[in-house]
């Protein structure tokens, strides 16, 4: 159904520039915007430093990155802006840090969202991954802390994980730069559309909920054609999220698609 030109639009330099500007991101001279999400204490800030070469101090305690941190790097011939979002366990509650992360992925529409997960505590980390995958299509899983997992005698089948999640998975030990080149390569492929993601959508929902979600999603799709995350918007509406309800009644949601 999608024409080639539509796909090119979502990949191009000026894609959603306005939305990003609104969130305070300077997008001048940048080809792609990459968001970095993840649970607290997964080494997210270390990955951020490994990618950008910044030597910011990274503390071992939750809540360190309260503000968004920004950095940049170039890879191949493209320039990337990297946004380090606050570490959160979920995107479903109302705390300020979760709101920063959620609104950025939803309204900022980064070209790629890298989700950093702790390989030694995968199951708990997957809760956030699944929520992010509900919002965005273009994601890369950075399976970090492989060294710690090894010490715990845990191995993770990266291929099985990538298959189940429908997005690429790259194993890393960010502290020692292990796997960072592969991560850079994968990010660039997803950003340029060389890898097409088919993200997992939550399946284990009860029937009445699934039906309600579907009904509302259809209605949203009719009125906001081209919205990439209508199902997530439906989730939020069913939960009574005031920000999203406002975004529907004011024109914020349709502005996002028009860009």
């Amino acid at each position, binding site marked *: 159904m999608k024409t080639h030109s539509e796909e090119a639009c979502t990949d191009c330099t000026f894609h959603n520039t306005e939305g990003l500007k609104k969130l305070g991101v300077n997008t001048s001279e940048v080809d792609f915007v990459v968001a970095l999400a993840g649970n*607290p204490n997964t080494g997210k800030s270390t990955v951020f430093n490994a990618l950008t070469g910044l030597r910011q*101090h990274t503390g071992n*305690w939750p*809540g360190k990155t309260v503000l968004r941190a920004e950095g940049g790097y170039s890879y191949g011939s493209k320039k990337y802006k990297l946004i380090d979002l606050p570490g959160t366990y979920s995107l479903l509650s109302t705390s300020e840090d979760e709101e920063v992360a959620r609104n950025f992925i939803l309204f900022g529409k980064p070209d790629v969202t890298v989700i950093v997960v702790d390989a*030694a505590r995968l199951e708990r980390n997957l809760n956030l991954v699944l929520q992010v995958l509900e919002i965005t299509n273009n994601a890369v899983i950075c399976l970090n802390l492989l060294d710690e997992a090894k010490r715990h005698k845990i191995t993770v089948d990266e291929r099985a994980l990538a298959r189940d999640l429908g997005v690429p998975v790259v194993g890393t030990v960010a502290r020692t730069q292990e796997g960072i080149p592969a991560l850079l390569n994968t990010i660039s492929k997803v950003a340029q559309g060389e890898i097409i993601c088919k993200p997992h959508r939550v399946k284990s929902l009860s029937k009445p909920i699934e039906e309600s979600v579907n009904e509302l999603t259809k209605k949203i799709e009719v009125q906001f054609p081209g919205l990439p995350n209508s199902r997530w918007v439906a989730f939020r509406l*069913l939960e009574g999220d005031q920000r999203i309800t406002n975004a529907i009644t004011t024109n914020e949601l349709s502005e996002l698609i028009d860009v």
Partner: protein
Amino acid sequence: MTSQHKKDSIAALANRLRWNIGDNFHDKLTEGIYADAADIASRAVHQQGEPRNATMDSKIDSIVTSKTWGFPIMIGILAVILWLTIEGANVPSGLLFNLLIDTMYPILKGFSSQLGIAWWIDGLLIDGVYLALAWVIAVMLPPMAIFFPLFTLLEDFGYLPRVAFNMDALFKKSGAHGKQALTMSMGFGCNAAGVIATRIIDSPRERLIAIITNNFSLCNGRWPTQILIAVIFIGVLVPDSMSGLVASASVISIALLGIGFMFLTSLGLSKTVLKGEVSTFTLELPPYRPPRVWQTIYTSLIDRTLIVLWRAIVFAAPAGAVIWLVSNIEIADISIANHLIEWLNPFGLFIGLNGVILLAYIVAIPANEIVIPTILMLTVANLKMAGLGEGSGVMFELDSAMETSNILSAGGWTLLTGVNLMLFSLLHNPCSTTIYTIYKETKSWKWTTVASILPVIMGFVVTFLVAQVWRLFL
């Protein structure tokens, strides 16, 4: 109109569906996500044999967060860090003094007289600005270069959340949020950073409490003051071999007193103007991670030490000029500084301090770091000490803490002045950066004023009481 109607109908449909589903959508969705996560994880994760580190972590945790050992270990770790800082900073500080003041200062003076530079330019730039900078670097760089990396190593190891865990119950009892323990820890580095860190607290009431009381965390601008005064006035009360230990103990007491004031003020606020429920929260104890020592030392030097030092330098340079000016511009044959000191003296002495200290705190509002240099410079200017420095308002050379001590006793300082200075350094207004940050975070002049004035009032009250009791019994 029609498009407005359409958009409303999405909201209307959502409302209707919400009625059908009931109000547990959130739980159902969360359950669904958890079920999928468990399912996917079970296919991808393979555990071989028994994990050992997890039990290692919980063994450490059962000790460092235990009711019996939690607090003693916390105080012990802080004590070791402070002791290393105090003992270790002495020698490099002396070397820096030698280089910047004993060697460089006369060379600069010689140059300027050879070039025939006007006395007031020479005074303003060399006796004012240069000496202020030299002082700040010599006093601050060594302790910071030791204290920050040590603190950072502790942070990287994963100890701070354990501190929060230990203190959670106390904060709850004070009607504050448990996460305030984390913002408090940040405050030990820098209060402005601590105030920004309060964003991790969701409830506005508890966040305000955390913002207002963050100033009671002794920040790095004040650690050097505490350490120096403790060495000069309290370390000398005991034999040499013990002095480092006793000085660290007194600095720790001040830091703990600050935490005590934080609890009391939080309690007071939550019982009066900021009443409300205490929120519950989950705090994850992250796994212990062996810190990468060299990288940590490097990043903490770049990230903290040099940035903080740079800030001190930026504020010290104009302060040096101001101090030189007020000490050298005379009205009715007496310098402005002396007028101000004489005017502040009665109140200062009344609360066990003196006019010099109060004036220094006014000059040092931009940055707490320059309090000690300012005090010394003003003391000399006020006394017109012979043989110390070239003229009034000159920051003079000091080879050791002992010489500082001589100056201060000549300026009429006693043990009481030292103790009260330590107390007042803990309990006074936040620096201008912190005040500005508080305004940016709260967007309220009212709360910014409260956060700025409250600690000063407490400082006056506490130093007054200490002075009265001291004079009564000693």
